[in-house]
């Protein structure tokens, strides 16, 4: 059970980091002044 939980946590972390990467790579800061 612990191993399954650890894998699920790792998978969730990877998904989150990938999502942040998408936003970061889009350079949204350059598209508006706010």
């Amino acid at each position: 059970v612990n191993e399954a939980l650890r894998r699920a946590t790792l998978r969730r972390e990877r998904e989150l980091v990938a999502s942040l990467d998408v936003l970061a790579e889009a350079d949204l800061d350059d598209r508006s002044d706010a």
Partner: protein
Amino acid sequence: VLRFLPGTSVLKRLGHLEVRTAVEPLATTGQLGPPSICDLEVGDLARNAEEWDRLVGSLNALDRIESTAANLRRPLQVQRLLAQRGQRARNFPVLLITAAAEQLDVAVLHYAADFDIIASGTAPAEARADHCHRLVTQRVVGKTAARQFSAFLSWPGSEALYSGVAPRQRWRSRRAARRPPGPERPRRPR
């Protein structure tokens, strides 16, 4: 446990190392959840449908905070408070995000000067009057937020947005104020 709501100003700056360093550990430990209004703001920056899907879809991985009816009522009160001080927030999402943060009793991570204006307009007087309504804002990087605020204020006539005077009227009156005191100079004949 949720502790922070990120403003869209933070989500837009995830490409900056200092912002990413602050946000990533909070996001991966469930301490940070963007309000659903951020979807609209991020989606508004998309250049095409594919990018819209990618950007807004990426927000799905984060723990979304949905707006409630109270979140929609509170911005009106805050807007009235700011108007009383001759101020206004530049964009509505900022009011909605602060309302959600206030209701959840969490801090806002932000890079936008509007949050500071709202905090200064609501926190001291309101908190004394009603302890249930506490507004907390926290900058990711204070210096950058301050710099951005200065840059915004340097835009000609922009400070008038905060004083409740139409930019053009305000711009004229400032020019008049810079004129040295003394007798009216005679007009040059045409």
